[in-house]
């Protein structure tokens, strides 16, 4: 609650700002003095007034029925969506058949060859090893299915994103029109995309690919636009003075100058597509995500992990390879004949693939698998059996969960739901305006009001209470770990792989351990959210602290400041922008897991979305999804001090 009822400016703010903050608050107070009595007399009571809601269940139910009735006859479906869907099916199939035809040896060789050419020998070895581990875990075919889906989805996302980015990069009007849309899409949780797409395309690969494209294209668009707009003015002028046409200017100067951003965009797109490919298993995407999801049904953490590890490996390999490719771009050290190396790599790949084919070893050999499910399950059982309850002095995890629910979640929830609706809007306005501009404040208030209009005020505040609690825990832990990582290289080196794993591990994998430790309810939902959001917060904090000007630190040290004083009085204040960004990212990421929380008893909006998906109930699912989006917008605006630059999941 403290975070909500303390909109007073902090004393650390400089005088001018404090003055401005007071002015904003006074304006807001004046506005409230006029509007609140008006609202109060018309619609008294704590919760959102019934008179101001719009019931969408009728029209949404009608739309859903219409689609089911017309899917196989209406021209819109026959001549547009049908072709889109068909194109997806055909292209995924082509890639899949190619991967199968190359065989496991061929695919491994191909992966290594590509990694060698773009990122160097070490990463080539890593790529080959990662692919072989996928096979060893008995996951070769699902890995290929996921890979096929990913290839198509990433290519489509990059194409769509680059086109949008090109438009936004070249035209100011397009930029203004696209920016709010892309901003909004960045705070949308992945699950929110699934329901509308499923409605049109039905369960299956086309829906999964399209949901992935919608999810993964925005970062590409943003970074493309950023790269094109950031091009060096002098270079452009020089090109102009040489008499280049607009197209020449674009192709020979602007695009090459933006290469770094473009590659970063591809990298972001790949990472987001991979995380979506797992979530899309809920709508029948097949592949690795499906294996994880099936293992969940038999409460088999080991089997879920066996399918989760390939996802983590794919993510880490793709991230490192595209990252290294981006770094190498500037240096251009391909030796005298780059094409010779490329040809050698290609030839080696073909030879390996043909050899495996002739040896009749196209499929992964059945004997070459390692079962990790058994030992993993025993370890998880042991852990949960010993930690769940009855640990001396500190109590078991179940006791913590109970206390956390009774002492933190319940009071925050009942407090939020007790607040009159207009005061919630007022608090949102005050926070957003203090930290941003009147525009962001207006967006935040409108988003919050939209929740009320949709008629899901109460569950939304329930979800909000969970989000606030999870963000608080994430920030406390994240700042502590981030500070430790920033102060010691060894800690950072140790943390890096752990953070990688937690960031890319599909959330489905840790649902069962979370329930086994914290029981069913809101506490495990909060725990799952913390696990998911922590890596980004730790990273941003550590990075921010490390980038503090060494000169400032040096002067503090020469003045005899202890290391604690250095941290408190120099590093933390100077890293303030990074810390604020960490808060913002923490909020957005926690919200992204709300729906996963619905799977472990979090209830409220998350459960409603899951319910909508499971029952094909558009009215419940879409409305709850929209409410989550509004919550995300509101929280983003409230925690976003200046124009945000970082990408989702940075």
């Amino acid at each position: 609650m403290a975070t909500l009822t303390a909109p007073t400016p902090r004393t650390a703010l400089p005088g001018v700002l404090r003055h401005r903050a007071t002015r904003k608050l006074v304006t807001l107070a004046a506005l409230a003095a006029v509007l609140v009595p008006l609202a109060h007399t018309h619609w008294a009571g704590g919760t959102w007034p019934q008179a101001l809601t719009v019931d969408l269940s009728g029209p949404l139910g009608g739309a859903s029925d219409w689609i089911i009735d017309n899917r196989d006859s209406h021209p819109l479906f026959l001549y547009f969506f049908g072709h889109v869907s068909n194109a997806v099916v055909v292209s995924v199939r082509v890639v899949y058949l190619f991967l199968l035809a190359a065989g496991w040896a061929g695919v491994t060789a191909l992966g290594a060859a590509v990694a060698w050419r773009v990122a160097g020998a070490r990463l080539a070895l890593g790529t080959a090893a990662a692919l072989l581990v996928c096979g060893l875990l008995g996951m070769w075919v699902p890995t290929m299915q996921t890979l096929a889906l990913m290839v198509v989805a990433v290519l489509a996302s990059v194409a769509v994103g680059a086109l949008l980015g090109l438009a936004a990069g070249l035209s100011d009007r397009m930029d203004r029109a696209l920016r709010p849309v892309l901003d909004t899409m960045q705070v949308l949780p992945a699950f929110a995309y699934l329901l509308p797409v499923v409605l049109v395309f039905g369960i299956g690969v086309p829906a999964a690919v399209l949901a992935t494209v919608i999810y993964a294209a925005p970062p590409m668009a943003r970074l493309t636009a950023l790269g094109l707009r950031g091009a060096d003015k002098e270079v452009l002028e020089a090109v102009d003075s040489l008499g280049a046409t607009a197209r020449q200017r674009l192709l020979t100067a602007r695009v090459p100058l933006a290469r770094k951003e473009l590659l970063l965009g591809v990298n972001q797109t790949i990472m987001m597509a991979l995380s979506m490919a797992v979530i899309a298993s809920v709508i029948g995407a097949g592949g690795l995500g499906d294996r994880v999801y099936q293992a969940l049904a038999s409460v088999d953490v080991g089997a879920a992990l066996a399918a989760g590890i390939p996802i983590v490996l794919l993510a880490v390999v793709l991230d490192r390879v595209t990252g290294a490719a981006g770094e190498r771009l500037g240096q251009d050290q391909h030796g005298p004949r780059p094409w010779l190396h490329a040809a050698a790599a290609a030839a080696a790949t073909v030879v390996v693939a043909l050899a495996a084919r002739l040896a009749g070893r196209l499929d992964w050999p059945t004997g070459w698998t390692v079962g990790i499910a058994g030992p993993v399950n025993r370890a998880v059982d042991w852990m949960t059996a010993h930690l769940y309850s009855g640990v001396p002095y500190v109590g078991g995890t179940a006791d913590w969960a109970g206390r956390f629910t009774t002492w933190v979640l319940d009071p925050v929830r009942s407090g939020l739901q007790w607040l009159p609706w207009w005061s919630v809007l007022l608090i949102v306005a005050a926070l957003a305006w203090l930290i941003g501009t009147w525009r962001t404040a207006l967006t935040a208030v409108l988003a919050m009001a939209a929740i009320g209009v949709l008629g899901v005020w109460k569950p939304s505040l329930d979800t909000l209470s969970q989000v606030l609690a999870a963000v608080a825990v994430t920030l406390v832990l994240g700042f502590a770990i981030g500070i430790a990582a920033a102060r010691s290289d060894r800690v950072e080196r140790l943390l890096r792989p752990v953070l990688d794993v937690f960031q890319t591990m599909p959330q489905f994998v840790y649902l069962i351990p979370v329930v086994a430790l914290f029981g069913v309810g809101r506490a495990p939902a909060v725990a799952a959210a913390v696990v998911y959001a922590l890596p980004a917060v730790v990273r941003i904090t550590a990075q921010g602290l490390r980038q503090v000007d060494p000169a400032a630190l040096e002067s503090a040290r020469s003045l005899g400041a202890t290391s604690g004083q250095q941290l408190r009085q120099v590093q933390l204040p100077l890293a303030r922008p990074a810390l604020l960004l960490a808060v913002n990212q923490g909020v957005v990421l926690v919200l992204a897991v709300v729906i996963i929380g619905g799977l472990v008893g979090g209830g409220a909006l998350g459960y409603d979305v899951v319910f909508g998906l499971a029952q094909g109930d558009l009215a419940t699912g879409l409305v709850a999804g929209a409410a989550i989006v509004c919550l995300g917008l509101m929280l983003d605006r409230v925690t976003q001090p200046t124009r945000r630059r970082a990408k989702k999941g940075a």
Partner: protein
Amino acid sequence: MRRRTTLTAAVAVLALTTGCGAADMTKQASPFANARGARTVTLSVQSWVGSLANVAVAQYLLEHELGYRVDLVQIDEVPAWDALSQGRVDAILEDWGHPEQEQLYVEDKKTIARGGGLGVTGHIGWFVPTYFAEQHPDIKDWKNLNKYADRFRTAESGGKGQLMDGSPAYLTHDKALVKNLNLNYQVVFAGSEAAQITQIKQFAKEKKPFLTYWYTPQWLSAKVPMTEVELPPYKEGCDADAAKVACAYPHTPLQKYLNADFAESGGEAADFLKKFRWTTEDQNEVSLMIADQKLTPAEAAKKWVDGHESTWRAWLS
């Protein structure tokens, strides 16, 4: 001028590649199906293990006796009906009754055909662990539930007793039941069956009392013995109005459904799936091997198939 030619060319290419005509996406199969020219059957698996057991045995026999390749798709029940109607899935082997979908797809649109009974009878109800029911035998009558409400209290249920519900995919009237029977209970939705089972196991490990929405046949009942709480008896039509339900859940003979085209022209596979029929004990045997002994579905199916040749021979004739 040049731009226009480019545009025309682009449209022409698009038209050629997409095949000009209509594309009915309700007739498009999965890109992973039929790889390398094998005959493929796609079966829908639901999120509970009993359904996985049906599918595992059907898959094993289709692959080893009839030479099909079997793809599995895991989706919830209502979306599965939709996928079945579109032909993305060829068969659902265990359906717990969806009158609305049955009317729409089987009667009106005729895109789904009935595949006969599975031979297993399903039942939903409220259960308490047997160790608790033995200490307090009167819990078996719903009228005494309020007496024990404080024994079932958790942090999530506030001051009331906790009635734990599972996956949102399952049919439940529990909120209405609690209200209409004036019970001092709070329905807590676990959100997924995995979460519900994990929680039940944790409770059972500590011999704590709990009240849960549960169903039979379910493999967990063999590990954590549970006793049903008798609700007011089920009468035909007493669950017609979802808000006014005040009676128990019915006993449902589980049904199979096939995509209509597949049922007609699915050859041996369709015939086999229509004849597939076993007992609750058979299903539980396989479920338990999968969920408890952690055999893979294929291993469990092989074990069952090896021991029950007379049962499955009849499905192939």
